[in-house]
């Protein structure tokens, strides 16, 4: 009973402002203060969303986007962790490679899109490459930074017990950086998501939510544009809550980083 009450309290505490916003949106459109071609009502957006899903076109766009997101992210994460580990572990690479990655990270990923289009064509491949690249940079930097935050006493303890070389890296350094890697995964995910959306809006040849957004703009269908934004929002929240929040909680518990000891 008290948990039901607890949940109700949480919903009210965290949801009141959102509810207020939607109410204001509905009110503005209902009294006719704005042109419905500039701002459709919440009900119109919802029904458009329903139609878009009903004829399955949006579903396959959503599928294409998610597939690209996961592919690009996995490739970027693998490359980022690999290079981050190398950079953090080998002195010469650390000196030479790290400044280059840090420099690249200061350039918004989307600035590389024209280059990607020239190299790979005006198609899904260019979008995928940009997504992977957007993931790779923060992941490499996070991995590298994590390796420098391994507590010195853990390193000393490992060395004193005779751990060396690859065994040392594999059984001590790598597990020690896992909590920071999870933070890096989360961060690189949001970078990937941004890069992907920007690229899809430009590269309209490729199927995906971004090209539906752009199509909606072209034909002036503002309800479609807003419906797709809603989908993008929900996808972001679902991944954050269902995947990353759980992963983080599990790792923090397992690594003893949680609250009171």
């Amino acid at each position, binding site marked *: 009973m008290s948990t039901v009450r607890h949940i109700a309290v949480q919903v009210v505490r965290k949801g009141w402002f959102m509810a207020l916003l939607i109410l204001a949106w509905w009110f503005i459109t209902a009294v006719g203060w704005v042109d419905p071609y500039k701002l459709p009502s919440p009900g119109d957006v919802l029904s458009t969303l329903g139609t878009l899903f009903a004829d399955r076109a949006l579903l396959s766009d959503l599928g294409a986007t998610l597939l690209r997101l996961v592919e690009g992210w996995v490739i970027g994460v693998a490359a980022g962790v690999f290079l981050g580990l190398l950079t953090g572990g080998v002195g010469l690479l650390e000196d030479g490679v790290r400044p280059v990655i840090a420099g690249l990270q200061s350039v918004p990923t989307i600035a590389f899109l024209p280059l990607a289009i020239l190299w790979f064509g005006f198609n899904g491949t260019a979008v995928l490459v940009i997504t992977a690249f957007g993931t790779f940079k923060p992941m490499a930097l996070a991995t590298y930074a994590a390796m420098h935050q391994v507590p010195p006493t*853990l390193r*000393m*303890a490992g060395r*004193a*017990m*005779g751990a060396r070389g690859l065994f040392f890296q594999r059984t001590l350094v790598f597990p020690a950086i896992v909590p920071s890697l999870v933070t890096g995964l989360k961060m690189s995910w949001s970078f990937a998501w941004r890069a992907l959306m920007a690229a899809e809006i430009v590269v309209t040849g490729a199927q995906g939510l971004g090209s539906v957004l752009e199509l909606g703009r072209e034909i002036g269908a503002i309800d479609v544009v807003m419906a797709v934004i809603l989908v993008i929002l929900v996808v972001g929240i679902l991944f954050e809550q269902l995947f990353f929040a759980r992963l983080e909680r599990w790792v923090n518990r397992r690594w*003893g980083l949680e609250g009171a000891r």
Partner: protein
Amino acid sequence: MAPALRIAAVCKTYERSDHVALEPTSFEVAAEEFVSLVGPSGCGKSTLLAMIAGLLAPDSGSIEALGQPVTGPGDGRAIVFQDAALFPWLTLRHNVEYGLRAQGMRRAERRERVENALRMVHLDHVGEKHPYELSGGMRQRAAIARALVLEPKILLMDEPFSALDAQTRTLLQDELQRIWLDTRPAVVFVTHNLMEAAFLSDTTYLFSSSPGRIVRRYDVAVERPRDESDPALVEIRQDMLDRLRSEVDDAARRHIDAAGVSAL
């Protein structure tokens, strides 16, 4: 019998500050001997232990362990740190097993050694738990098991009990005494607690700071198992305390003299 450790004119200066951490220092530790290094913080005792462990190189002088010059960690030496330094992602059992894995021992052989080590520190019932699920005292016992499992000829301990509350500390001192009587490695035990040093040791070296050096050696000829209220131990502790006080007074006087000279 050859000494377990031979420390000859070992000296360390920290480059950045030019601070002499340790003046040339020499002593030997016999096999099966329990030696304590005691003194205020900054007296170089932990630095010396790190050098014996092979985690830090001396500026000059030499360290021999079991007749071999020390060039790195390992080779019959194991160390216990002040914060247990257990790996948080591993269970206690796997923590204790780690050193054996690092040495490439086979699984079947490892299991028995790990069980014995855990039993020795009375942690065999919590082997599947993770370090964060345990109290500070249990974590420190696990750290001791992790060292013991390597069956070291030389056990190095860097203020292993100083982060614990007084009761736990007393319990663990008794436990360490018992374990040492069972297994008899040579021990170098670093502490800033004078009674702890006297209680545990055959020999105690009293250090003073700035620069770090040995000011006196005490041979503690008291039968084991011992009791902290033993008058002989209390007397040694009192003597160490008096000596440290006069060292501090001397240092203060030198400091004032130096200031006076520079003021003229």
